[in-house]
């Protein structure tokens, strides 16, 4: 097996991350905010958002990468999670409904341990709600319907301030409680005596833990009975059915699972920002998240994470490149447009040079080693 692997691996293909590389990445991820702080908290904030995008990309990867269901309205679940948390932990509901205010005289401050699971659950339910009517659709048709779904959610959020004010319409919901982990509100500096950890860095560590758990869950799902069935549906739905896979249930599971990730990510976003409005959940966001997983390497976790980090951080980095360029041209170039142009250029060239993504899944199965071990075990037994 070993010789086969070396013979057939293509020169361009990246190997799956080895243990050493994983340790290195983890160390780097843990030290990153300390490095970034040197340049200012704004940079840590960019890293925070990049991590939220990694969460979203991981969730969408379950739907698009594993099960092969092209979902163009994924941001809807992000929105549902964000609004769910916003409603549960802000003065919005108590202001709008006197009876809720009467129930919670100190204001509605749902603790983290209740609000996050509820956001996840609610988003998951929306996932099933979207999944159920689209079970028979594939490819482009599914993309169109999911795109519509994403827009419907946004339009609803935009207009649900009348006749009963639930979402506060385009004005959005503010004063959302920051997350409080074990009594420490993440919105305040943590004083360790010798040094202070700013709020953005605290959020960074929370998000990195979440991303770590999400990667673990995704990779465990990938190498399981459910994950294999998802991939079988992606590869050939009829053959999957003929092998006894209940494609209806498994597609719904994929939608639900992906939406749950979106919901958790949304709740994090709401508490981190302290403010949500329908603007944050435009179609462009769905497209960006999809772009991340396609750019990185669809269906392959290291690729998805890489793609998300790049596309989330790139606009911010380019902001600093665009500035000087703008000065050079005497302000004739609009910074925002230039940024878009550079992103587009980067994406087009990446897709031309590496059509399967920056870090696509290797041609050989990763489990090779494990399965050999299994056989060895069996031989001993």
């Amino acid at each position, binding site marked *: 097996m070993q010789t086969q*692997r070396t013979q057939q691996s293509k020169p361009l293909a990246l190997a799956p991350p080895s243990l050493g590389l994983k340790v290195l990445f983890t160390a780097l991820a843990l030290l990153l905010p300390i490095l970034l702080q040197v340049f200012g908290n704004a940079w840590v904030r960019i890293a925070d958002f990049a991590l939220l995008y990694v969460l979203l990309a991981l969730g969408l990867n379950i739907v698009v990468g594993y099960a092969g269901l092209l979902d163009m309205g994924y941001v809807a679940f992000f929105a549902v999670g964000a609004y769910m948390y916003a409603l549960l932990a802000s003065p919005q509901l108590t202001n709008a409904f006197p009876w809720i205010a009467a129930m919670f005289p100190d204001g509605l401050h749902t603790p983290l341990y209740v609000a996050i699971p509820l956001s996840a659950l609610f988003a998951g339910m929306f996932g099933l709600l979207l999944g159920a009517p689209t079970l028979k659709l594939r490819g482009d048709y599914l993309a169109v319907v999911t795109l519509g779904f994403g827009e419907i959610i946004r339009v609803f959020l935009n207009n649900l301030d009348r006749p009963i004010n639930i979402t506060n319409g385009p004005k959005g919901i503010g004063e959302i409680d920051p997350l409080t982990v074990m009594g420490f509100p993440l919105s305040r500096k943590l004083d360790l005596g010798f040094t202070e950890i700013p709020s953005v860095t605290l959020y960074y560590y929370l998000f990195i833990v979440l991303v770590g758990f999400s990667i673990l869950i995704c990779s*465990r*799902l990938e190498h399981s*009975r459910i994950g294999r069935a998802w991939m079988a549906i992606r590869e050939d739905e009829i*053959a999957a*059915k003929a092998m*006894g896979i209940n494609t209806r249930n498994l597609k719904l599971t994929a939608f639900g699972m992906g939406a749950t990730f979106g919901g958790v990510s949304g709740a994090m976003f709401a508490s981190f920002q302290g403010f949500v409005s329908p603007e944050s959940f435009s179609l462009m966001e769905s497209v960006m998240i999809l772009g991340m997983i396609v750019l990185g390497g669809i269906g392959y976790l290291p690729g998805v994470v890489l793609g998300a980090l790049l596309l989330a951080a790139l606009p911010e980095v380019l902001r600093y490149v665009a500035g000087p360029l703008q000065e050079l041209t005497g302000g004739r170039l609009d910074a925002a447009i230039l940024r878009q142009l550079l992103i587009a250029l980067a994406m087009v060239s990446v897709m031309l040079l590496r059509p399967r993504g920056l870090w696509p899944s290797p041609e*050989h199965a990763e489990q090779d080693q494990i399965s050999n071990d299994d056989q060895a075990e069996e031989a001993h037994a």
Partner: protein
Amino acid sequence: MLETHPSTVEINPPPALSVKGVCKSFGGLQALKDIDLNIAQGTIHGLIGPNGAGKTTFFNIISGLYAADAGEFRLLGKPYKPSQVHEVARAGIARTFQNIRLFKEMSVLENVMVARHVRTHSGLLGAIFRTPAFKREEHEIKLRAYALLDYVGIERFASLKAKTLSYGDQRRLEIARALATDPHLLALDEPAAGMNATEKVELKNLIEQIQRDGKTVLLIEHDVKLVMGLCKTITVLDYGTKIAQGSPSQVQKDPLVIKAYLGSSATPTTESSDQKS
């Protein structure tokens, strides 16, 4: 590794597959008219017929891809309804496809592991928390998949992607995948299509091996030589009706079969008299 069914010892075992009065029409075209078919357990049963005779339609009906207009279906004496494809696989019919339908981007091993889905149970939570039951099941799935790959002779390719296999090996993988669902009846749709002579001999040996190990095989095949050499019983379809059934030698002599394959004018007597007149 494929367990033999002890039921062959019984005096009168129910047929592996028994269908009665199967009808199917597509718009105005009646693709199948009142087909009855019994497949005895542990045999290789051939289904032949000229192009457009309704073989693949019949195949798709028993495996649930098309809904029959009428008909009664029994598997090992137990009635089953081929209305949901995945339920048919659960009931115990596994099939291969005329145009190979592997999970191309998955590894050879994973292709077989997928097919264990229907006989295993672990769910989302088991997978996320890696429960002992999940690990045990996963281990069993993997061992079984390796054993099946070994059985069809492509174990050395286990870690390659399915699309990289040669044509003949892809056919073998499809058979291994079908066997992984623990079927009572293995239905092969033109398994020799596009194979060269050597591959055909190997395929023949494999199918015989499967039959010796106690499985019932339904074989649709264009290659008459292969069918005649393999099958105990052959059913011949033409224009959606069953025109003959019997042993290979009986079927070969059947005038209706000769007529269906060679056309009516091919019957020697009529041909010569036509030409003279």
